[in-house]
Structures are given as structure tokens and as C-alpha cells.
């Protein structure tokens, strides 16, 4: 952390980009995040796994402050997350987010979905935004669907559009909150392929997922959460073959059996 000064807003490769320091969160009596310390380096792909209710989605959502935290600090590129208002909106523009339920804007076409952020937040010209949006849609293989509405697309297609929409903001980091959990099995691959490509191109990614295949191929680090705590973390190789904690071995035993 000390390596980043406020004069250098962009972290160099390998330096921490997102840092969670002693983060705590309560929902009433439920301690959903317990002393979370996590540092994500620029260009790193971190996969967060764990049983449902372990707090992994909540963790992901705190990074762009869709969830507030009780105590602790979260910094992005050396800057603490703003509380609210314009500064917070500005921060969110730097953090791409992909949701489990896609959340494409239902009243806008695919192209308009991807263009909205650049035009309204970045103040790009319509022509530039459209050119860039078309490139991104092409990259996720959906350029020919540009004039359609979200409801006319399959789940997998919608999720790829959602990824393009997030990329259009040229974010520093991409958050994926269970991006394939709402998809039919045959659509999961098309979304994961896009994500693997993104990882290869050096995007910093935090991925909450149950896709162990993705974790093995694309992750630099696997973080295992249970009951609001980070139980252990390590490379995919270490984690999947020699999990240290009983809790993680138990979890892996359950999901890898099939």
C-alpha cells in the first residue's frame, strides 16, 4: 500500500489495486463480513468461492459500495471509497460490475445498453460511443443483435451484453457476482469463454462463482469464504489439490463429487 502515493492514481502492474482492510459488516445480528483483509493486485484474477450464505456476494458488492460496510476501509487505486453522491458515482464508473441476473436496462436496445454509460457518465459523443459499443458487442459475439431488446435475447447472450456494458466504461477492475448462476448449462460456457478472454488480456477481476473449471483455468488466486470469513486463499493448484482447512476440504468434497 505504501508504494502508492496519491500522485500516482494508476497502480503499476502487480501493485495492489483494490485493498480491503479489516472490513466488518453486520445485518442486524448476522455478522456477514468478519475482519476481511484482501489485497487484489493490478491484472490479478481472484476467484471467490464458498458455500451460499458465506458472504462472498456481499464482499463483491462492497467493492463498489452497492453494500455499505460497518467498519474497516476499502481503497481503489489508493483512494478510499467515497461515502455517496457524485464522488461515489465517479468511483463506480471505474469499477465494472456483472450481476447474477444480468440487469440489462429493459427499455433500451442492446446497443443503447452499452452506450448509456459512455454517453451519460463519460460524456462521449454518440458517434464515438456507438462505434465503441459496436466493437465491444462484436468482441462478445453479439454485434448483429444490437437493435434488439434484452428480452429478445437468451440468458447467456444477455450476460455477454452485460459484460460489454461494463467494459464500455473502461473500468480498472471488473466484479462478477455469480455471473453464470442464473444460466442454463449450455449457456454457461459462452459467458465463461468471454471471461477467460478478458482474464488473458490482463483485466483485474474479482469473480464470485461456483464454476470450479473457470477457477482452475483463469484464476491467479482462489479465496475461500465461509461464515463471513476468509478461511483460506492460495493458487488454484494449491487450493484444489491441497486445501489446508477442514472447511474447504469438506466444501470441495461436496461439489467435486459430481
Amino acid at each position, binding site marked *: 500500500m505504501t508504494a502508492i502515493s496519491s500522485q500516482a492514481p494508476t497502480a503499476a502492474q502487480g501493485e495492489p489495486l483494490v485493498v480491503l482492510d479489516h472490513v466488518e459488516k453486520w445485518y442486524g445480528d448476522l455478522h456477514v463480513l468478519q475482519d476481511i483483509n484482501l489485497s487484489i493486485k493490478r491484472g490479478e484474477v481472484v476467484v471467490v468461492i464458498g458455500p451460499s450464505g458465506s458472504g462472498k456476494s456481499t464482499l463483491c458488492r462492497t467493492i463498489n459500495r452497492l453494500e455499505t460496510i460497518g467498519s474497516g476501509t476499502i481503497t481503489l487505486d489508493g483512494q478510499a471509497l467515497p461515502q455517496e453522491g457524485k464522488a461515489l458515482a465517479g468511483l*463506480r464508473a471505474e*469499477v465494472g*460490475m456483472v*450481476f447474477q441476473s444480468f440487469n440489462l436496462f429493459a*427499455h433500451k436496445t442492446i446497443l443503447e445498453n452499452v452506450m448509456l454509460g459512455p454517453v451519460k457518465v463519460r460524456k462521449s459523443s454518440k458517434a464515438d460511443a456507438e462505434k465503441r459499443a459496436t466493437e465491444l458487442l462484436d468482441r462478445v459475439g453479439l454485434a448483429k443483435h444490437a437493435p434488439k431488446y434484452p428480452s429478445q435475447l437468451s440468458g447467456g447472450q444477455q450476460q455477454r451484453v452485460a459484460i460489454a*456494458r461494463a467494459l464500455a466504461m473502461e473500468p480498472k477492475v471488473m466484479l462478477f457476482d455469480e455471473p453464470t448462476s442464473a444460466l442454463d448449462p449450455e449457456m454457461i460456457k459462452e459467458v465463461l469463454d468471454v471471461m477467460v478472454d478478458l482474464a488473458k488480456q490482463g483485466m483485474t477481476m474479482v469473480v464470485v462463482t461456483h464454476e470450479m473449471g473457470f477457477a482452475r483455468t483463469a484464476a491467479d488466486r482462489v479465496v475461500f469464504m465461509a461464515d463471513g470469513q476468509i478461511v483460506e486463499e492460495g493458487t488454484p493448484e494449491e487450493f484444489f489439490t491441497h486445501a489446508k482447512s477442514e472447511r474447504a476440504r469438506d466444501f470441495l468434497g461436496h461439489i467435486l463429487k459430481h
Partner: protein
Amino acid sequence: MDFLTNGHNAYLESFFYTLMLFLVSGVLSLVLGTILVACRVGPVAVLRVAGGWYVTIVRSTPLVVVFALFQFAAPMLGIRFGWVQIHIGTVDFTSFFAVAVVALTLYTSTFVCEALRSGINSVPLGQAEAARAIGLTFGGTMSQVILPQAFRASVPPLASVLIALIKNTSVAYIFGVGEAVAQMRIMTNNYASERVPIFLTFAAGYIVIVFVVSFFANHLEKHWRTA
């Protein structure tokens, strides 16, 4: 049917007046209702509370009382509309018209607010989260993502609110506005033997206006169903 052959201009003029009352207060109610709903669902606690109280109080007050307030009480507080002097053909729009517009707008905007709020509640939370996630502010989230969808979901209840407004314009008759019902009263006095056709003819006038509004509402609903 002497009342029509001798007085069809009076009939049409009176409905022109009703229509103007409806259009002007309708547009203003939609604007004010949108502002109110932004207050009610917005992030500023003071505005949320103020918006809630405004809706509760104004919506609970009979329209006649709101009219009376602006016709008889407001001038005592220095709120006057004597400066309104607009003449279209032989129809005059003066302070009576202005008072009616103000009363109808303040009253109807509360119903518009609640119709829109039901629409906003029907927009999934994920839409707002996605809007915030790409960096839109509260204003941007509302204007670009939530309200356009809320308007769509609000079309049926909004149509009901506007239809009620059309008929509520008749309250203005009590306060000296020469709209359709005022004209109907004049005609029932002048052509006492033709009361039944007079009532039916004036009812028909309202039905035609309501029909046009319903037609547009249905059209909008169908048009937006695909998106």
C-alpha cells in the same frame, strides 16, 4: 333539440374550456407529480418526509376545499391571479381559470405521484443497481433508467388519474368558470323541456374526451409492451 341548434357554439366553447382546463392542469400535474415522486423515493430524508406529508394532506382534502382555498383564502394571503388575461377567440382565460388550474394541479399531482410510485416499485431493484454500477448519479439513474420504465408500468393507473381529472374539471363550475357543466346549467334553465337530451349531450361530450385519453393510453401500453 333547440338547445343545440341555437347554442351549438356555446356547447363547443364550453367543452373547449373544459379541454383547456384538462390539458393545462394535466401537463402541470404530470410535471409536479414527477417532481413529487422523485422527492418521495429520493436519497434526501427531508424531501422524502415532505413529499409524503404533501401527498397525504392534499390527497385527503376534498377538491372543492382546495378550490375554495385558492379562490377565497389565497387572495387574503396575497396570492392572486388577476394578471392572467388570455383570450382565444371569444373564450377568456382569466384568474378564475388560473385558480382552477392551480387547484386541479395541486390535487391531481398527488395521484400522479402515487401512480408513478407504484410504477417505480414495479421496476426491479437490479435496474437501479446496474445504473449505479455504471456510474450514474441518483438523477441519472432516475431519468435514464427508472422513470422511463416506471412511466410504462404506470400507464394504466395514470390513465385513470387523468380520466378522473377530466371529470374533476367540472368542480370549477361552482367557482364561476364557464366550462361544460356551467353551460349545461344555463341550457337546462333556458330549455327546461329538453333536460334529458341536454344531460345526455353533455355526458356524451365527456365520454368523447375520456375515450380519446383511453385510446392513447391503450396505444402507449401496446407500443411499449415489446420493449
